[in-house]
């Protein structure tokens, strides 16, 4: 059973043995002395002199530095970014959701100076516990009010906490994913460093012209 194949296999595994590991450590990664010094922004000697305790920890393998995950801006994640100002309560998202987990209750309400009459949201609940993040709701939203988020940590001990309500959506940090929102990609928007708090800055997918709006809301009434 001895041939050249086995030794070649051993060489391949040995070659991989000396390779740098591909593991991505999360949420932080262990570093040695050099890594800790680099993180602190000084050379190792200076680091040992300046911060002896930290350097001992680093040598003992206990020092960690946080890791920023490399994710695509299109990542369809948690924490939907929702701009209530833009929502007309048309419930397209609820209709397009394959699982029917978006619950919308609306009342006829406010009048937007620009866009005219709209509906006020009473309830806008997304049951994230059942959500599969397909993004069809975001794709369906004609006014770009709903965006996918970029986070992925939302573990709780109680299922009810997985229902995201309107208040939570409004309060959440607005880091919209560029999934189905090409305007973010055109502006080279990075959802991992920037936030878009104002719905005007979030850009419009297909914004009707002023004439159209006037025709629709004033002339034809």
């Amino acid at each position: 059973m001895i041939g050249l194949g086995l030794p070649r296999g051993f060489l391949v595994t040995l070659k991989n043995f000396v390779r740098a590991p591909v593991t991505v450590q999360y949420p932080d990664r262990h570093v040695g002395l050099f890594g800790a010094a680099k993180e602190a922004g000084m050379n190792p000697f200076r680091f040992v002199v300046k911060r002896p305790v930290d350097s001992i920890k680093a040598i003992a393998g206990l020092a960690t530095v946080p890791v920023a995950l490399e994710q695509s801006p299109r990542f369809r994640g948690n924490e939907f970014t929702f701009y209530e100002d833009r929502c007309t309560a048309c419930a397209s998202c609820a209709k397009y959701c394959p699982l029917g987990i978006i619950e919308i209750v609306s009342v006829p309400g406010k009048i937007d100076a620009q866009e005219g009459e709209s509906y006020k949201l009473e309830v806008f609940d997304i049951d994230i516990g059942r959500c599969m993040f397909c993004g069809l709701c975001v794709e369906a939203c004609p006014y770009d009010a709903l965006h996918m988020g970029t986070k992925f940590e939302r573990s709780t001990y109680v299922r009810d906490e997985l229902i995201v309500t309107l208040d939570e959506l409004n309060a959440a940090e607005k880091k919209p994913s560029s999934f189905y929102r090409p305007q973010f990609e055109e502006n080279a928007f990075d959802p991992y460093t920037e936030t878009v708090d104002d719905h005007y800055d979030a850009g419009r997918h297909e914004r009707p012209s002023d004439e159209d709006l006037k025709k629709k809301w004033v002339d034809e009434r």
Partner: protein
Amino acid sequence: MAIKTQPVTVNLGPQHPSTHGVFRLRVMFDGEEIVDVEPVFGYLHRGSEKLAEERTYTQIVTLTDRMDYVSPMLNNQAYMLAVEKLAGIEPTQRGVWLRMIAAELQRIASHLVATGFLLQDLGALGTPLIYAMRERENILDLFEMLCGARITNSYLRPGGVFMDAPTGFWLALDRELVDIVNTLDELEEYLSGNEIVFSRTKGTAVLAPELLINASITGPMLRASGVDWDLRHRNPYDYYDRIEFKRILHTASDNYARYWVRVQEARESVNIIRQCVAQIEPGPVRPSFDDVPRLIRPPKGDAYVAIEGSKGELGFYLVSDGGIAPYRMHVRAPSLINLTLLRDMLIGGLFGDLFVSFGSVDLNMGEVDR
């Protein structure tokens, strides 16, 4: 010399580490030799075909992701071709090229998984599997760039794909293609000449081509027996007729041939992707909503489209009654049909070869049970 023995029946699964999902095999052993095999499946049945009757044509894409969860892009492609045929939608050029690139990347990923798990079944303690999965991760990163998800892609829409590739994608793809070839080289260096892999897989679970054809086995399993049957060549869908590619054939029809065909096909897929990248042109990736609305209502009728999936002929049969949801959907799942020769493969073999032969079918329980 025959020694008086008594066969013993052992239940392998449904919670067995090597059954590639939840699958149960009632095996009768005589010593180490397999006397009888009875496959029991259905543990992962989720009723996807029934669920499809309650969903719009676009929503069903999310269901197809979950059928063969190691090659969702190919499922998407097969399903969308069926929808386009049913509704008479003409896809956009760029959309077709993009989904071909995605499908071929998915084929590589799927073949890598198959190879890795075959070696896992052979008893290599994870090393080849991790080398293969490492490369698959990079492919999934590309998918994340394309559509924001790694496995539950739902990338395709009627008439194309939902979004054009981001600008960084093409550079990453170029790099990844080089990496894939390197990984395949490494895997072949490691395994293709390995005496233990040889002695374990050569001449085991040999199936005659006639038997395979009669049982309507397709895919790498069929091509490993020397039957030149590749739907990309026989029945070109999308733009495969504009692509020059080699059909990989092996004549031995044993476990080794199946492994070899998969690895070589992954190499060939790299070629296909290179040609796709060379031919792709700018343009819209899906028809405008005037041509193809979000909610399509195909005319009454039915359509069947099959593509060359990573595991064999993957077909979707759709019947429309003119509504927003299909009246009936049926999937020709290659994993299920390739499993039908399990008894022929296993009976008379040894226990050690059981899961190797089983793994060489490259089946996926999500697809078998749907």
